[in-house]
C-alpha cells in the first residue's frame, strides 16, 4: 500500500486519520486495514469500484457506523465524540436522506434548532439560488433538488470538514454540475476540507486535489494529485527490456514485441530504451484499481 503524504514538517494537521481501520460484517469484509492520513485544506476524492468500502469509510468517519477494529480520528478525536466535534463535521449520506414529510422550510428550521453555528442567511440564500420552493415537501423534490437540500443542510451548519458519500451518483449532468459548483464555491468561501467519494473520475479530476483509491476494501494509493501525476509514468519499450531501476510496476501489458508498463517512479528513468509518457488522473486511478482487483499490492519484478 502506498501513501504519499503531504507531511513535510510544515505543521499541516490532519483532518482525518485512520489506522488499521477494519469493518467486518457477518458475510463479508467491508473495509480492511485502512490506514490513511488526510490533510486539512484539501478536497479529497475517494475512488473505487462499487462495494470497495468507500461508503463504509465515510459512514465510520461521520460517526454513524462503528468499526470492528482499528482507529479513526477526526480533528484528533473519535468521530462524533463531543458537541464541538459534531459541530465541525457535516455529512451528506448516500441517497441524500431527508425527511420526506417535512417541507424545505421545516428542514432549515430543524437545522437551525439543532446546530448552534447554523448560518440561516447562508441557507436561505442557497435555497433561493437553487430556486427551491420553501413550502414544498422534501419527498416531492427531484433527486437533484434533494441532493442540493441535503448539501445546504450540511453546509449551513458551517462545518470545517464535509463528508459526501457519492453525492452526485444519481444526478443528471446538469444537476451534477450545479452541485459541484455550489460545493466548490463553499470550499472557496469558507475554507472547508472535503472528503467525497465517487466512481466518476472526470468529476474527481475537476474538483479534487488529493486522491485515495480504495479497491476491495483496501487502500491502494493515497496522495496529492499533482504529486501522483508527477511520480507516475507510462513506459513503453521492447519486450525483452528489464524494468528500469527505481520504478515500481503497478500495471503491465505485453504484446509479442512491446511492453507497456505503468510505473511509480521513485527515481529518475535513465534507461534510454524506454519511452516515457506522462499520465493523467484517470490512468492513475485505473492502474491502481486494476492492481487492486488482482489482489496484489506488491510490484512485479520482470526479469
Amino acid at each position, binding site marked *: 500500500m502506498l501513501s504519499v503524504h503531504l507531511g513535510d514538517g510544515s505543521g499541516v494537521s490532519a483532518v482525518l486519520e485512520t489506522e488499521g481501520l477494519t469493518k467486518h460484517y457477518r458475510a463479508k469484509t467491508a473495509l480492511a486495514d485502512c490506514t490513511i492520513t488526510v490533510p486539512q485544506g484539501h478536497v479529497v476524492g475517494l475512488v473505487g469500484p462499487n462495494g470497495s468500502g468507500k461508503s463504509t469509510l465515510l459512514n465510520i468517519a461521520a*460517526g*454513524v457506523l*462503528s468499526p470492528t477494529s482499528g482507529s479513526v480520528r477526526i480533528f484528533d478525536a473519535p468521530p462524533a465524540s463531543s458537541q464541538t466535534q459534531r459541530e465541525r*463535521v457535516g455529512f451528506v449520506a448516500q441517497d441524500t436522506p*431527508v425527511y420526506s414529510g*417535512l417541507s424545505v422550510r*421545516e428542514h432549515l428550521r430543524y437545522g437551525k*434548532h439543532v446546530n448552534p453555528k447554523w448560518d440561516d442567511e447562508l441557507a436561505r440564500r442557497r435555497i433561493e439560488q437553487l430556486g427551491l420552493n420553501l413550502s414544498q415537501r422534501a419527498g416531492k423534490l427531484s433527486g437533484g433538488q434533494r441532493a442540493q437540500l441535503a448539501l445546504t443542510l450540511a453546509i449551513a451548519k458551517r462545518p470545517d470538514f464535509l463528508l459526501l458519500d457519492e453525492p452526485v451518483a444519481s444526478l443528471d449532468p446538469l444537476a451534477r454540475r450545479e452541485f459541484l459548483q455550489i460545493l466548490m464555491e463553499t470550499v472557496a468561501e469558507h475554507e472547508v476540507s472535503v472528503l467525497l467519494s465517487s466512481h466518476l473520475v472526470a468529476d474527481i479530476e475537476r474538483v479534487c486535489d488529493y486522491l485515495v483509491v480504495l479497491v476491495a476494501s483496501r487502500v491502494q494509493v493515497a496522495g496529492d494529485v499533482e504529486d501522483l501525476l508527477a511520480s507516475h509514468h507510462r513506459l513503453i519499450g521492447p519486450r525483452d527490456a528489464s524494468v528500469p531501476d527505481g520504478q515500481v510496476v503497478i500495471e503491465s501489458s505485453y504484446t509479442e514485441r512491446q511492453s507497456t508498463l505503468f510505473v511509480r517512479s521513485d527515481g529518475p528513468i535513465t534507461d534510454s530504451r524506454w519511452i516515457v509518457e506522462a499520465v493523467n488522473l484517470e490512468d492513475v486511478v485505473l492502474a491502481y484499481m486494476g492492481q487492486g482487483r488482482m489482489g496484489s499490492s506488491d510490484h512485479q519484478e520482470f526479469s
Partner: protein
Amino acid sequence: MIWFAWRQFRTQALIAFVLLLAVGIAFLVTGPHVLHTYHTQIVGCSARHDCTAVRGSFLSAYPFLQNLLTESELLAVVIGIFWGAPVVAREFDTGTYRLAWTQSASRARWLSAKMLVGGIATVITAGVFTLMATWWSSPIDRVRDQPFSLFDTRDIVPIGYALFAFALGVALGAVVRRVIPAMVLTIAGFAAVRGLFNFVIRQHLATILHTSFSLTSPATTGGIRIGGNINPGDWILTTVTKNGAGKVFPRFGNGIDFQPNGNGSVTLQGVGRCPNKIPGGLGTGRSGPPAAVREALSKCVNSFHLHQIVSYQPVSHYWGIQWLELASYVVLSAILAVFSVWWIRRP
C-alpha cells in the same frame, strides 16, 4: 429538538386526537342515558321487587361500547407499535438516522426529545380515554360490583400499560432497527409482561387475606355454593376445601353437587356418600324442597365437617393495587427509556 420531535409526531398525534374525539362523542352522547337509566330503574328496584331483571338488562346495556372498553387493552398495544416502534426503527428504515446523527445535537438529546414528546402524548391519550371510560361505565360498575374483574381497563393502570408499551416499542425498535419486526416483538413482549402481572404478580401487590368458614346448610338440592360467604366484590384467589380430618378435597369450582344414587341414597360429589338416607330422593315440591329433605341434606353435609379456607384480596385493597401496579409499569418504562438511550449511544 423538542419542536422537531413534535413535528415528526404531529400526524400520529392528529390521528389519536380524532379517534379520541370520536370515542369521546360516543361516550358523551350515551353517558347521560346510562346515568338516567341507573337513577330511574336501579335505584328504586328493591321497592319494586324487580332488581334481578332490571340489573340483568342494565349490565348488558350498550354492548358495543362495553365490549370496546374491555378491548381497551388494545389501546396500549396500538400505541406501542404505532408510536413506540417507529421512533428509532423508522429512521433506520428510511436512512434518515444518517442525517439526524450528524447534526450538532447528540444522539441522547435526539432520542430523549422524541421519547418525551411520545411519552407525554401517550400519558395524555391513555389518561383521557381511561377517564372517559371509567366515568361512562361507573353506574354499570356499581351495579356489577366486581371492581377486580375489570381492573385492567379502569381508573389509572391503563396509563401505565400504554406508557410501558410505548417504551417497549422504542427500545425494541432501537435494538432491532426494523419497524415491522419491532412491532411484532413489542406485541409479544407486551403480552408476556401483562400476562405475568395479571396471573402472577398482581395478587401479591397487597397483603393477601385469609378466612375460613364451615360449609353447612346447602342452599338448594343442587349442591353447596362455595365462596358465597365472601363479599361479592372481593377478589378470590384460592379456595381450599378440607374436612374435619384435614383431608384436602380437589378444586370444586363454584360448588359441590349432590348426586342421587337411587333408593334414597345421595352422594356429595367428590366428598363421599351421605351416611343418612334422603327421603324421597331429591325431588322438590312447588315451593322448594320439603323440610324433611332439607333437614336430611343438612345432616349429610354436617357429617363431613367440611370447611373452606379462602385466600382473597378485599375490595378495600383495590386502589392500593392500582397505584402499585401503575408505579411498577412506570418504573419499567423508565428503565426501558434509559436502556434505549444507552443502547443508541454505543459507538
